[in-house]
């Protein structure tokens, strides 16, 4: 049954080559197709599929209510919420503007639902992240191994460097931070506990005195101000990491697209 299986694959392959060639072939209407029409068509097909989405949603929640499955009462909220928005979106306008632009007009019932129901829910869900960022960093930033330590150090320095408090941290605390990071890295190498602690305190005191002599407390060298350290971390190691990941991702996308265009990756079409 060629039609059922292979036609979709042929369409996929030909569309892939067409889109890629569109960037190089010098024909205006091909270029106009790949630049403007093709992505628009995606939007239109996706919009049609939205019907399927809503039918699926209605089916799912109504069977839940009819069959009295667990938490069925809450599904009534979903159904009412959905139907209300469709009613305000297409049938009842409530504002002077015609149907369509009324979605953004302040006096339409649709906008009321958007402003006083959808908006608070959406921005509060987003705001939950402030709590989860705290619990995630509390749980994950532990000095388990060297990599986790780097994650912790750059995370903390970035957090402090970005807020005014970061600038207030005095130079000697920064020295202590440097020394403790150094010793944390070599902690596993020095077995004897006493030697470890004495050398740790010795190093701290020695560098503090050195700093005092060199007058660091007067003119703060750049490597002792947390905001400047943060800027350096952003400008050098983070840029290197971002660039490596960006090239990696781009190669991954190009390879995956190649596999799709040459029809080698077909499982998306159920084959």
């Amino acid at each position, binding site marked *: 049954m060629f039609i059922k299986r292979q036609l979709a694959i042929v369409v996929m392959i030909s569309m892939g080559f067409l889109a890629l060639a569109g960037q190089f072939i*010098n024909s205006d209407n091909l270029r106009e197709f790949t630049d403007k029409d093709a992505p628009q068509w995606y939007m239109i097909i996706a919009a049609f599929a939205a019907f*399927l989405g809503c039918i*699926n949603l209605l089916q799912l929640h109504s069977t839940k209510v009819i069959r009295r499955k667990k938490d069925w009462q809450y599904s009534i909220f979903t159904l009412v919420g959905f139907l209300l928005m469709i009613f305000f979106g297409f049938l009842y306008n409530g504002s002077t503007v015609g149907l369509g632009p009324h979605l953004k007009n302040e006096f339409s019932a649709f906008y009321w639902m958007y402003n006083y129901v959808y908006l608070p829910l959406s921005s509060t*869900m987003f705001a939950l992240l402030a709590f989860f960022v705290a619990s995630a960093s509390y749980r994950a930033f532990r000095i388990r191994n060297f990599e986790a330590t780097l994650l912790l150090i750059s995370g903390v320095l970035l957090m402090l460097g970005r807020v005014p408090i970061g600038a207030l941290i005095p130079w000697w605390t920064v020295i202590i931070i440097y020394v403790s990071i150094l010793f944390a890295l070599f902690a596993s190498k020095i077995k004897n506990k006493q030697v470890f602690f004495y050398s740790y305190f010795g190093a701290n005191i020695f560098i503090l005195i050195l700093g005092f002599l060199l007058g660091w407390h007067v003119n703060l060298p750049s490597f002792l101000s947390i905001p400047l350290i943060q800027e350096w971390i952003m400008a050098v190691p983070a840029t290197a990491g971002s660039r490596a990941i960006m090239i990696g991702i781009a*190669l991954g*996308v190009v*390879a995956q697209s190649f596999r799709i265009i040459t029809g080698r990756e077909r499982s*998306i079409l*159920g084959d």
Partner: protein
Amino acid sequence: MKKINIYKDFILFFTFPVILIILYFINPSQLFVTGNQTSFIAILISCVTFEFFIRKAKNGENFYMRPIPAMQAMEEAVGRATEMGSSVLFVPGISGLDEIDTISGVIILGHVAGMVAEYEADLHVPCCVPIVMEAAKESCKEAYLKKGRPDLYNDSKIHYVTDDQFAYAAGVNGIMLREKPAAVFYQGKFYAESLLLAETGSSVGAIQIAGTGSSSQIPFFVTSCDYVLIGEEFYAASAYLSGSPEMIGSIKGQDYVKLLCMVLIGFVVLVSFFNFLNITQLDISSFFKINISN
């Protein structure tokens, strides 16, 4: 290893691209757009390299692929879910089918569905975009069929939640809290809601395996999930899991293109050094001229 007919191969992998490049530069009757020669050559070289190694793999040569912990953990996670008698939750990301991340996520879903069919666990796939739901149903149905268990495929378990990013996160959080899945997969394109999902997943005590190409969300998955496919590993995962020689060959080709990128970076640094010593006056940006001048 079957002897490759060198003569036929030589034509395919050397002369054909060279002819194409020459044709592109002659640009007969303005057939080609001027100005993006560099991209044309770059794309051509990458595609030829992929094709070369795919063909080599198809002719029987097998390549070593380094083990990626996140992929080995997938089978283990599905096994754990079956032991504990709870479900496997697969989150295919919140972007549409016009993103390569989502396509890779749905392909990985196909492989995971195959594992679930073998272990007779139950799979739950809440989708954010209706088209992705259709593609997910398509590839799951096929995966169950290939494992000979079409009876286990339960169509209602792959359903649409909502299109909105945070409503989807709220809905999936609700599913996780009430269903308490033992294994959770996040494979696809994610935005700010990644941490909402991952933190709920870890509070429910599930094994979490994430994979995404959205580089800004990888840090949140790294801190909250047990295993993460970072950037390129995520795209290679679908080829890894299929294990077919063609796919493995294309990853080998990907590595060689990466090597080429590193060589190019070295070349660029060298040229900028010679420019500094003004031995050469090569202007790098002219070589990388990318804008389409039409």
